[in-house]
Each structure stands twice: as C-alpha cells, then as structure tokens.
C-alpha cells in the first residue's frame, strides 16, 4: 500500500531532475550564442548612437545657416567702405557663383591690396567673418614690403554662402 502510494514520487523526482539536466544542457549551448549576439548588438547600438550624434551635429550646422533666413551676402567692397579707411581701394574680382544643395550657392571673391598695413588686413578679414551671412577666408597671400615694416601686398580669396533666390 505504502509502496504503491510512494511509487510516483521517484518518477516525478527523476523527471524533475532530468528536466533540470536538460535545461542545463540547453542553457550551456544557448547562453554563449545569445551572449555573443547581445555583445555584438550592443556594439552596433553604440555605433548607431555615435552616428546619430554626428547627424545631430550636421543638422545643427545646417540649422545655423537656415536661421539666417535668406539674407544676402554683404559685398566685400561695402565692408571695406564701411571701415572708412584712406587706403587705396583694392581690386575685387568675383567668380561665377557655384550652386550647392537646397537652393544655396557659394560665392567666391578675390581681392588684391597693393600696399596695406598687415594689422588692418587682419581687422578687415575679421569684419568679413563677423558679417551675416559671413565671409570666410579661403586663402591669403601676404608679401611683406621691404621698404616699410608692417606693410605688405595682400591677395585674398573670400567665400560665402547665400540663398539663390535672395541674390541681387
């Protein structure tokens, strides 16, 4: 009687033990694969986050230009005039504007100063960079005058972006 009542318990115990053993084997086989997969995906997530940060940075740069709301570039001659100097007016030569993305275009102007104080040239380039939209100095070639110290002839190239429809 007792034996008949107690019979299922060993079977149940062995079943539980076998299931435990089976799941252990399964876990031993599955865990390394899943672990590798998780590690790889987490590395990919980190890379994707880095890409998103870069995208945000690029969007920020683009947004900064969009806030200029289509104002045209101030001509370098105008900036020179506003600085009210008694220097001889430089020679300005503008190249053909180059269209870039989304209705924007790049303007490029080359200026030649025959004899100008170098300190003044630095101030002029800074004033061009502070204009809205700004001009940027793409290239400058200074040859210091031998006769008078602090003077030199300067050739500079300025670049600027503006919206095509706002162009004069």
């Amino acid at each position, binding site marked *: 009687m007792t034996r008949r009542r107690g019979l299922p318990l060993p079977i149940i115990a062995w079943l539980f*033990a*076998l299931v435990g053993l089976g799941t252990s084997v399964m876990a031993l086989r599955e865990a390394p694969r899943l672990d590798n997969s998780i590690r790889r*995906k987490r590395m990919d*997530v980190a890379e*994707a986050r880095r890409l*998103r940060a870069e995208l945000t940075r690029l969007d920020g740069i683009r947004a900064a230009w969009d806030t200029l709301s289509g104002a045209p570039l101030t001509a370098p001659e105008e900036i020179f005039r506003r600085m009210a100097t008694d220097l001889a007016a430089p020679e300005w030569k503008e190249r053909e504007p180059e269209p870039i993305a989304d209705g924007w275009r790049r303007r490029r102007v080359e200026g030649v100063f025959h004899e100008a104080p170098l300190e003044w040239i630095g101030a002029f380039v800074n004033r061009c960079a502070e204009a809205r939209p700004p001009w940027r100095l793409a290239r400058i*070639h*200074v*040859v210091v005058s031998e006769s008078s110290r602090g003077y030199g002839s300067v050739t500079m190239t300025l670049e600027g972006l503006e919206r095509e429809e706002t162009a004069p």
Partner: protein
Amino acid sequence: MRISTGYGIDWREGFLAVARYERFCRGERTETLLKMSSPTSDSLATAPTASLIREAQRRRRALAVAAVPCREGVVLRLRVPLRNRARARRVLPSLLDATIPFSLEECRYVIPEMRVSAVNEMSVVAVVAPRDAIARRLEALRAAGFDPAILVSEGLALWIGSLAESPIHEEPDAARIVLYAGGDNWVGVGGLETEIRWAISAPPPSAGVDAAAVASACLPFLRRWRAETFGVAKRPLQWHWCGPALPPPEVRAEAERRLAADGHIVFAEYPEPASFLARSLARAAGDAGASSGQLRCAEDEHPDWASWRARSEARAWLGLATTGALLTAVNLAGLAALRRADTEAGADLSRIAADIAAVRRAPYGRELVVARAAVERRRESAAPFARAAEAPALHALATTLRTAADVHIQLHEADISDQRLLVTGTAARTEEVAALEQALRDRGWTLEKRGGTGPAFTMKGTRP
C-alpha cells in the same frame, strides 16, 4: 518548530526509565519523563508515560526505541582489508561467522558504521543479535505495554549517548569506558576517540556491596580495555558511571581508588545517571544515524518505522525533485533574461537606425548599413555648410601675425589656405621660430618642413 520526537524506553528487570528527545529547527532537548523502580504490570498500565507513547505512536508522530540487552548480542569493530564498500559487505558475513559465538544464519546483523580507515583497509562496526533473542525481547516489551519501532543494541546506544553528552572529539587518543550499572547486569562499552571498540556485559556485584566487590565487578571491563588499547591509549582513561543501580558514592569512591591503583583513570558520573540509557535511546530515535543500528526484523516491521523510512525516502526524492525544479527555473529564467536582453538590444538598434535613416523600420540585419548610408548622405549635403563655418586660414593668419609681433620675427611672406601654409621670415634666435611653430601646431597644423640658412626660415605646413 519541532522536527522530530523520539521516546527511549529503558526497561529491564526491576527498573523502567522513559526519556523524550525533541529536535527543533534550532537545537534539541532531551528530558527524562519517568523513572520507576520495580514496576508492576498494573503500575505500567496506568503510567501516564505509556499512554503518551501509545498516543504519539497512534498519530505516527514519534518513534519509540528500546534496547536489546548487551548480553544477548555482540558489538564489535572489524578491520576488513578492502577499500570497496560493496566487496566489504560481501565478505563481512564470512568474517562475522568466524568471530561471533552464534551461527550467523540464526542472527540478524547490522552495520551502523563503515569507513575507510587506512590504505586498503576498512573499519566496520557490526552489531549481531540472535533472532530469537530479539523476538523474546520484543515480546517482553509488548507484554509490558510497549511496542518500540526501533530496537538497538544497548552497547551502541550507550556509546552514542556518551559521545552526545560528553564529546570526545577534541581529545586525540582519548580512551573511554562507559559503565552502565543495571540491577540485573552491568554493561561496559569501550572506545578510543570517537570509535566504539567493544561492548560486553558482566554480572553485577553480589548483594551487600562493598568496595572490593564493586572493583571486582569492574575488572572484566578494565581487562578488556587493556587488551584492546594496549600501547595505543596515551591519555588517562575516562571512566563514566551511569545506570539505575550505581553503588553508593562512598563505596564507589573506595572502588575507584582500588581500580586507579595500577593505572591513571579519571572517573565521572553522568547527570541523572539512572535515565542515561533511556536518554541515549530517545536520542537514537531522533537521529537517523543512531537508528541505523535497527535490529528489529524486516518481517516484523513496526508501522512507525515503515512510515519513518517512507518519509525519509520521500524527503530524499523531494530533495532531488526540488533540485531539478530549481535548476529548471534558474536555467529557464537565465535564458529568458538573455533572450530579452538580445531582443531589447535588437529593438534599440532598429529604432536608432530607423531614426537616423528617417524610415519606419530599418531592415533586419542591415540596420547599421542603412544608418551609415544616411549619415554619409547627410555629411555630403552638409559639407559646404560645415566648411563655411570653419575658418582655419583666418586663425592661422591671426596666429602668425600675433606670434610674429610678440617674438619679434620679421615676416617676409605668408601663403595660407584651408589646408596648406607657407611662411618665410627672419628670426634672431631659433626659439622665436619654435614659438611660432608651437602656436601653429596648437591650431592643428602639421609642420612638414623647416629650413633656411642663417636667421632666415621657411615653414611649410598642412592640416587635414
């Protein structure tokens, strides 16, 4: 919470003692319930303890244990020259048959202890008792109103009780004799450290005891101890008195002086010595190890013993089942957690990639490819704007003019674009040129070449 309860019944001619052992989650308790001299069948029948035991047995709540007298059996330690337990068990009957004074076929024997003691040797404790002696003892107990579930050897019970009440394990090479003084006979159990070596019985001293008779009654035990432990025991012999028929203290003191005359013996008496055996038997009921010396035949198995064994077996199976269940739960939970983490990482990747590529859902397995392509497209379209926001030529010009003025360098020419730089000039000292170099390097320029003769210098540089 109480885990187990056991009753020990020390019933012999002219004496009855009953003790109870209870084991709790935290600790254990042994107490004497009854001591009765010259019990009659009437007094036994009306004793509250007997009904207590019967009630506990009826509810299958406790095991009752009684002893098979030592004179009815043999307790001995054997050395089997084998290390394999199964083989040792196979050869043991032959060894016992040659050692015991009975025919083994008519006996029941149990092996309460079997362990490897030395290289290729096994130390075995065997308890042997004739079947008819066991049956007689059981009948006598039943006639007195007791039906013990377990019958154990008196000698083994005394030794286990002695170790429980005064542990010996911290004293290496300690030898001990436990002397149980019963009214009908005296029992002596001897051992070295925790190992029982022998258990023998001897007649009690004759009536009208004096010290000489007591010492004389003790001599068989002392002789056996000397024979068994000659050259082994290096410490004083511990002699523990117990039993209901202990001689008066003054007689015992004189007998102890006589016994100690030819050897160093330390005498002691257990508290409540009369019920010592009953307590030891009760402890055997509560301890699976102690009850491993069960002598009651399988054909006449007590239901309490059967249910106790069934419970023990069930506990063992439940342990296995619990281990299996826990293992399953831990493994499945661990795998589920890993799978969840994997899915979450995949979902994160897919969400970020879709966010970057501005699509509803990035294709599985190609999330990073899609994201990289989207960022590359954006990089290309934003490149003119990014370039327009930078002014490396302006900074290089400002740095060159300022540093040249600070360190008194005479500039001759400067040709600076976004990525290339050429500066020529004259400096009085090389440190001044080094200062200009350092200032341009701080602006991110890599200066490729520096040369010139005398104080004149030419500096070329690039930047990415």
